[in-house]
C-alpha cells in the first residue's frame, strides 16, 4: 500500500469516527464543534478526490458558516432555557427507519455500480471553450445547469425570510440582536481592524478566479460575509436594520440580475438562460460579481439572526 492510500484510509476512518461522535456526544456545543471538524476533514477528502471547488465550498459553508449558524442556535436555545422538545419513541423509530432506508439505498448504489458509469464530463469539456470559461465547474453552474444555480440563490433568500419571520412584531424591520455572540473585546477589535482588508481582497479574488480555476461566488461571498460579521461582532459597525432599502437591494441584486440576463436570453439567444455568442464570459462574470455580494449579505444576515430591536430613527 502506498503512502497516499494509507493516508486516504486513515482519513476515511477519521471522518467516520468524527461523524459517529457528532451523533453520540451528549452536549449540543460539543456536537457542533465535532460537526465543524467533520466539515474540515470532509474538505480534505474532496481535495484528495481532486474536487477542489467542492472542497472550498465544504470548508467555507459546511465547516464555517453552518458551524456558526449552529453555534448561534445552541447559544439561543441556552438563553431561552427550555428543555429540548420531547421526542417520543414512534418518532425516533420512524427517523431511524428512514435513515436506514437512505443508507441502504446509498449502499446498494455503491456496491453494485453499473458496468459503464454514466457521465457527461466529456461533453462538458467538449463544449466548454464556447463559453470562454476555463473552470468546468463554473461552466456547469452557469452555462449547462444555470437554472439550478438560479434557484439555489432564491432558496438562500427564502432561508433568510424564514429566519426573519421569527422576529416579534414590534421588532420587524429592526436590528438583529447579536446577543448570542461574545461581547466586544480589545483583542477582537484588533483582529477586526487587521483582517478585513486581507479577507476582502481574498474574497474578491476567489470570485474572480472562479471563471478559470477553483473558486466562485459562493466561496468568495462566504469570506466576505465572515469579514462583515467580524466587524459587526467586534462592535466596530452596527448590524443594519433589516428594513433598510440598500440591504434589501443588495440581497436581491444577484438573483435579479441573473434572472434579467436569463430572460434576455429569450430575445438575444434562443432560450431562457442562454447567452448570446461571444458575450458568455463577461455576462457570467457580471452575474458572479452580483451574486457574490448578494450571498455575502444573505449569509451575514442569516448568521446575525432575527431582528430583536426596533429600528431607531
Amino acid at each position, binding site marked *: 500500500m502506498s503512502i497516499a492510500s494509507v493516508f486516504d484510509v486513515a482519513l476515511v476512518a477519521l471522518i467516520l469516527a468524527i461523524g459517529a461522535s457528532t451523533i453520540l456526544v451528549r452536549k449540543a456545543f460539543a456536537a457542533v464543534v465535532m460537526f465543524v471538524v467533520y466539515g474540515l476533514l470532509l474538505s480534505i477528502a474532496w481535495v484528495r478526490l481532486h474536487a477542489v471547488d467542492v472542497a472550498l465550498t465544504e470548508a467555507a459553508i459546511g465547516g464555517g458558516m453552518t458551524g456558526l449558524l449552529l453555534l448561534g442556535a445552541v447559544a439561543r436555545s441556552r438563553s431561552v432555557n427550555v428543555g429540548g422538545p420531547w421526542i417520543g419513541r414512534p418518532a425516533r423509530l420512524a427517523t431511524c427507519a428512514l435513515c436506514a432506508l437512505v443508507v441502504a439505498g446509498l449502499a446498494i448504489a455503491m456496491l453494485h455500480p453499473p458496468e459503464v458509469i454514466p457521465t457527461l464530463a466529456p461533453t462538458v469539456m467538449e463544449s466548454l471553450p464556447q463559453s470562454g470559461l476555463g473552470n468546468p465547474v463554473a461552466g456547469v453552474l452557469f452555462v449547462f445547469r444555470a437554472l439550478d444555480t438560479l434557484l439555489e440563490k432564491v432558496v438562500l433568500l427564502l432561508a433568510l425570510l424564514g429566519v426573519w419571520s421569527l422576529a416579534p412584531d414590534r421588532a420587524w424591520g429592526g436590528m438583529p440582536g447579536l446577543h448570542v455572540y*461574545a461581547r466586544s*473585546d480589545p*483583542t*477582537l477589535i*484588533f*483582529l477586526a481592524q*487587521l*483582517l478585513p482588508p*486581507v479577507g476582502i481582497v481574498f474574497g474578491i479574488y476567489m470570485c474572480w478566479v472562479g471563471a478559470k480555476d477553483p473558486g466562485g461566488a459562493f466561496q468568495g461571498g462566504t469570506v466576505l460575509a465572515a469579514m462583515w460579521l467580524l466587524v459587526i461582532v467586534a462592535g466596530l459597525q452596527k448590524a443594519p436594520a433589516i428594513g433598510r432599502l440598500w440591504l434589501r437591494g443588495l440581497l436581491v441584486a444577484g438573483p435579479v440580475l441573473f434572472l434579467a440576463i436569463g430572460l434576455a436570453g429569450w430575445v438575444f439567444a434562443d432560450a431562457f438562460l442562454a447567452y448570446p455568442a461571444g458575450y458568455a464570459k463577461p455576462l457570467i462574470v457580471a452575474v458572479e460579481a452580483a451574486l457574490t455580494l448578494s450571498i455575502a449579505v444573505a449569509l451575514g444576515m442569516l448568521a446575525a439572526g432575527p431582528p430583536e430591536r426596533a429600528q431607531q430613527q
Partner: protein
Amino acid sequence: MSLVMDILTICAVSAGALFFLAGTVGLLRFPDTLTRLHALTKVDNLGLGLIVLGLLPQTSSLLAVKLVIVWLLVQLSGAVVTQLIAGAVRQHGADG
C-alpha cells in the same frame, strides 16, 4: 544544490511534525486550559512555521509567498483565538 535543499526540507518538515506531535500530547496531557492553550500556540507558531519553511525550497516563488501568507494568517488567528479563550477562562472559569 538540490540535495542540500532536499535535506533542508526533510529536516524542517520533520522538526515541524515533531512540534505537532508534542503540541498534541500537551493538549491531551496538560492539567488546565491555560497550559493547554500554551501547548497549542507552539503548534501554530513553530510547527506550521517549520513545515512552511521546509516546503519553501520545493515550490515556485508565487506559491512560496502564498505559503508564507498562510502561515502568517494562521498565526494571527491562532494568537487572537488563544487570547479570547484565555480571557473567557479568566472571567468565567473553565466551565463558563
